[in-house]
């Protein structure tokens, strides 16, 4: 997805956070806006972030021309259930993290190599059998891409990724 998109010079990848009221159907509104207007979703994460105020934070990684990104932000702000929209790519630098669970099977030399790579990437091994590992890896999406690529020849069988969570550096909130 992203590799095809980045070939065009004016296509940019942006991470956008949307704080919404956690009401029925709110995710469908956000997702429906993207599909209805033909915008891309590269990843999307959502969870309630304040159980008292009943607000959820949706973090969307999307791609488009600067004009499309401006439209995406404006269209998101129109949604009635939306409190705030923040673009982490155009604002002061933020931190982006993603978690993945990566399952690798194999024995002998390949198994040892997979474990060694896991250590280099500071993975936790969260499940082990004589023929498999499940690695838990956290980091920027590009680091996870890289780890998954390295595991491919070593017996990669399954990957589950969370999508991106983002937050600002320094004392400021969204």
């Amino acid at each position: 997805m992203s590799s095809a998109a980045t070939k065009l010079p004016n296509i940019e990848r942006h991470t956008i956070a949307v704080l919404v009221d956690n009401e029925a159907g709110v995710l469908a509104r956000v997702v429906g806006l993207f599909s209805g207007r033909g915008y891309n979703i590269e990843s999307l994460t959502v969870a309630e972030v304040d159980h008292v105020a009943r607000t959820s934070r949706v973090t969307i990684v999307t791609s488009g021309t600067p004009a499309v990104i401006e439209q995406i932000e404006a269209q998101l702000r129109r949604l009635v259930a939306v409190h705030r929209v923040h673009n982490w790519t155009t604002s002061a630098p933020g931190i982006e993290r993603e978690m993945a669970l990566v399952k690798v099977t194999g024995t002998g030399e390949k198994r040892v190599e997979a474990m060694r790579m896991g250590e280099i990437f500071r993975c936790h091994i969260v499940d082990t059998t004589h023929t498999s590992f499940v690695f838990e890896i956290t980091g920027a999406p590009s680091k996870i891409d890289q780890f998954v690529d390295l595991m491919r020849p070593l017996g990669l069988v399954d990957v589950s990724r969370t999508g991106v969570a983002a937050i600002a550096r320094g004392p400021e909130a969204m």
Partner: protein
Amino acid sequence: MDKDGNAPGSGAALEKYSGLPTRDGAIELSGAEMVIRALKDQGVKHIFGYPGGAVLPIYDALFAAEGITHVLVRHEQGAVHAAEGYARSTGKPGVVLVTSGPGATNAVTGLTDALMDSIPLIVLTGQVATHLIGTDAFQEADTVGITRACTKHNWLVKDVNDLSRTLHEAFQIATTGRPGPVVVDIPKDVQFKKGPYVMPDAIRHRTYKPKTDPDLGTIVKAIDLMANAKRPLFYTGGGIINSGPEASRLLRELVKVTGFPITSTLMGLGAFPASDPQWLGLVGMHGTYESNHAMHDCDVMIALGSRFDDRVTGNIAKFSPDSKKIHLDIDAAQINKNVHVDVPIVADATKALKEMLHFWKTQKRKVDAAALKEWWKQIDHWRERKSLDFRNSQSLIKPQYAIDRLYELTKHRGNDVYITTEVGQHQMWAAQRFRFEAPNRWMTSGGLGTMGYGLPAAVGVQMAHPGALVIDIAGEASVQMTMQEMSTAVQYDLPIKIFILNNEYMGMVRQWQQLLHGGRYSHSYSEALPDFVKLAEAYGCLGLRASNPNELDAMILEMINSPKPVLFDCRVDPKENCYPMIPSGAAHNEMILCDAEEEGTKVSDEGKMLV
């Protein structure tokens, strides 16, 4: 019945008896009673609806409710268009009540229409009982799922304790900011259950706070551009109408003090009087020669409540290449959506126009009079092209002639005339030729282009303005899509006049097939049509037919003077095309005019892809 003759559960009765105060002072009502009470508290006088299983409790509460008139339509699409006509002609929200399943799905076209044209509607739908939701119950549909993309917002109310707050929020969201339709889906068990009723003034929405005050810095930038303009142009739209009559008044004042020319979108007609010499006429695909050339050549474009729709801009790459653009819109998402603008103003039109006038006057701004004189000279030169002229006929009624006569024979009634339309050639001819002097007199389906809009819309307009002359300028194809609402007009003594320009074709489809598809008229001819005169009689209306230009005036007068609803079968030249026209993919200064038809039209392959 109580002692005042009110049926139990009726609005009047429930206010006195069933409204037992709860601990916190709120009164307790059933969900159905809350609906009626909320409508009253929101000042609703008319609702358009159709009963069914899942709304029976609300209809029961409505049975003897005083102060609310229910208009029984013949199809739910008709109810929504009628509510749109009502809203557009009054500035008040339109209210619709329909049942679950097919009732709700039939309302979808009207909802989408209202969303595209920013019409405030509150559509109440019944839903199957909460315990049946998701079981494929009889007349169950995922109404909030289906209508999510065609409403400004929607709700499924599963708890009666949330109902009154949701209803008041629905009114607030539909009518403020950029107006639009909302849906409140109410399961049948919620209509029966009792809960506390809260008053509208207790409601403040957590997230919804539309920005309506302009940033004064942008206002000053805008008037700077205007004062230095050499070839300025106002390009106004439906946002002026939606903002209310005061916006039209302020617009008129601003156009007067600047002396600039003004054009308008389809949705904006009536905001500025067509009789004024500064008025250039409609802009866009079927706009006048002077409007479109002025759009192309202007150096400062002042877009007020218009959204650079593709019917206006034509080919974006060739759109008004040398102008600085000021764009006032209440919806921030319209800024830079289709066209990059230089000075965006996100605000309500009335407030922004007030500030523009204030700064223009207090800062003693002057226009570049010499340049403006040259600009008007150029515009007058374009006007001499007389782009709305057509070749009249002695034997056939030309559709343009029919609309001209309709206008001439009704104009003595001034602002007491309301025009609705269907969609197609007749709509464009009406927009070009009927001359509007006041806002809220022109009801048409602009964004969605809904054939079948005009007849039910006329029902809604006439309901709101009982003594007025309400005419649907229609085509014979469109009008058959919602013809059943003639029966509604008869039931409520609504003397709407359906003026059908009958050319036996889907005229606009035929025109495009002629211009773009080699004259292959694939399925655009109606080989069978009803006898509209007999049809009128069957409905209990007056049916009239004119086939000859000589008899047209007398027939129109008979139509206007009849106290009944009228179906007027005006047989017009089936071959007439609507000009001027910007062919698909072309620029504003590449128009086809009526006298150029014989030369043949070149439409690029790229242009053919466009709708």
